[in-house]
């Protein structure tokens, strides 16, 4: 995938344009997914670089407003990842995260943000390979969906620059 990226970039650079790179923000929990991502690093599993991880103590800390903020700031996709149900370091945090998501998803659809741009996953501290796979899948998904035009298209049309 890295080579494909580079080739596209070289061609585009030659053509004098900027190739769009998906911007994906991941909100992960410290105890499972962050540790799983660390394990992916220790195992040198390679994955797509278009992801930025933000560490939180628990997925239960995630306010849906953060996800909206991420899109507002130009994210094309968001990933939320935590401990498997039953394994939350704080017992119930991931259950609350899941419930919030269940309520939030219809709101996203209602507002017109494609809910496929937000992915939920459970990655444990022992699942380094799964983390790499999840990241690659999410980036590929968002690449296929294209840039998130919703907010930025509106800004451009109204003539407001950021």
């Amino acid at each position, binding site marked *: 995938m890295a080579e494909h990226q580079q080739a596209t970039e070289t061609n585009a650079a030659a053509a004098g344009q900027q190739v769009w790179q998906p911007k994906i923000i991941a909100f992960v929990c410290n105890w499972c997914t962050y540790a799983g991502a*660390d394990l992916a*690093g*220790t195992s040198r599993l390679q994955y797509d*670089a278009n992801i*930025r991880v933000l560490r939180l103590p628990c997925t239960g800390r995630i306010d849906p407003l953060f996800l909206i903020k991420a899109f507002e700031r130009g994210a094309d996709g968001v990933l939320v990842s935590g401990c498997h149900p039953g394994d939350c370091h704080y017992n119930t*945090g991931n259950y609350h995260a899941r419930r919030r998501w269940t309520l939030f998803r219809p709101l996203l659809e209602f507002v017109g943000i494609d809910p496929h741009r937000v992915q939920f996953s459970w990655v444990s501290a022992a699942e380094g390979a799964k983390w790499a796979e999840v990241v690659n899948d999410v980036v590929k998904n968002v690449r296929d969906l294209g840039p998130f035009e919703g907010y930025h298209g509106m800004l451009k049309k109204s003539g407001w620059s950021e």
Partner: protein
Amino acid sequence: MARVGVFICHCGENIGRTVDCAAVAEAARKIRGVVHAVDYKYMCSSPGQNMIRDAIRQHKLTGVVVAACSPRMHEPTFRRATAEAGLNPFLCEMANIREHCSWVHEDRAAATRKAIDLVGVMVEKVKRNQPLLPIRVPVTRRALVIGGGIAGIQAALDIANGGHEVILVERDASIGGHMAQLSETFPTLDCSQCILTPRMVEVAQHPRIKLYVYSEVEAVSGFIGNFEVKIRRKATSVDSSICTGCGACQAACPMAKIPSEFNRNLGPRKAIYSPFPQAVPNKPVVDQENCLRYKTAKKKGTKAAETKVCGKCLEACPIAPKKAVDFSLCEDTFVTEKVGAIVVCTGFDLLPMNQFGEYGYGKYPDVIDGLQFERLASASGPTQGAMKRPSDGKEPKEIVFIQCAGSRDNAKGIPYCSKICCMYTAKHTMLYKHKVHDGRATVFYMDVRAAGKNYDEFWRRAVEVDEANYIRGRVSKVYQRGDKLIVKGVDTLSGELVEINADLVVLATAMVAQPKTEHLAQRLSIGYDAHKFLSEAHPKLRPVETNTAGVFLAGACQAPKDIPDTVAQASGAASKIQGLFSSQELERDPTIAHVNETTCAACWYCVDVCPYQATQKKEIKDRQGKLVKMVATVNEGVCQGCGLCAATCRSKSIELDGFKDEQICAEIMAL
């Protein structure tokens, strides 16, 4: 005015090879609020830490960002360095540009871009960090040890000898675990029980060890230094405080055909039983599933104490005036204990019988596993140590040992090596030859792994002195013909097929985690891997701790291991606990939640959501004592810092220090 210092580590080649650290430092200097940015080869080394300390003093830094490995690795290191320079340690953050960046992305440009972004994120966060002071909580200086095998016994003795009280909980009626089932141990061929039973007795007699046998941990709540544990004491039907262990009840019991778990189903036990003669404590328990009285009582719906069936044990009990056998003790009871630290020593199990159809394991009585062979060889076993095969009691003249039965086999879902089998199989061949001089022992192996001290010399003795026949190859099938077991295998070194007419086949089955491990791990909030072995905090540097502060691991529950390593790990866990108990108070991580009492609307959502009941209702009264309003408040001693309350609060009146809404928003905005 923020004055942030950014320190980029090369980590030797680990980061420097893929990420252009100088470029990251350059980009960092351009961020508003950053007054100092450098890169260096090894930030965590002594000169590296000095750089940070000097920079804090020289440039009067108000915040520090170290871009290096994972904070899970070195956050404490850099926070300590920051504190030593006089800056509050919670004003130091780490950007993970190694595990999450240089190690997983090959493209230098992409990795450098990402590193710059990650540094930007942490700079924005640290600008909004507040200095925090550690919270002190009292420590209950008692330890809980779960599991009474050699790991639990060692840990309990070390902690108790260190001056602290220990609660040891064991599921079976006696402590000793699997080591008590062994005949002799490698590489010394020490009699296993002879080296174990003195320790078992020491545990039982130790003034600071409280032993709960035939008990299980039911529930755990609290946190490091302050755990509350609920223990289920299973019904024994025997009053152990007056029982003398004379054994008369066991002799009298008519239910004589129950397969003994201790003898791995090779011999019987009674319904009222002590697992083995050297059991500690040597007090029997009644197995309610197999006791005639209990079975009848269950069918009739009456209580065992009132059901006048059998009762031979009761009759035989010589204790007076009150008998030790007491059928009114028929219900499980519960006790609660307060402890400050927990060591999990639940040990291992062996791969079950139904996994080896091709070897006839479970079908042919003469195909057994390693632990069953130990029981046959053991002087306290079902054959008193005579080599007699299970089917007809004949002395086997030809034994085939099959290594790696299940281990290193992706088809069986067990890719790992079980570590102990090469050694115990070599031991088995020696035990066999010492008893049956004209017998022949053949071992089918893939590799022989004898890596410990004196281990290689040991297995070579099996080959050179005791004439064990080692064949490098696997066995495809074992089947019965007459009273022989035909073993079909291959010798890969000569390239020939091998067929052996064996009297007994011993499988070195894979070591697996105990079936209830997952359940226990969830109750303790500790991690486990795909094979249900419990997860250590760091595979290299923190082998006895878990990710949950105050919960430690020792023994085979963490990964397959032999007795010397188990004992070492148990002592290691004990020493960590000694460190924990070395002061009366514990410093807690202050990244906890706080309520803004002005804006709190008292909706109590935060109280509902908290997994630890740390958020509580508080009354605010005026000077006359009249109630003005109710607000939520956070108990500093209990809050674990998960942030559920902060995310749930609709008026945003509750904030989690270190992960405030404004900080996370700033992090998002930095990307």
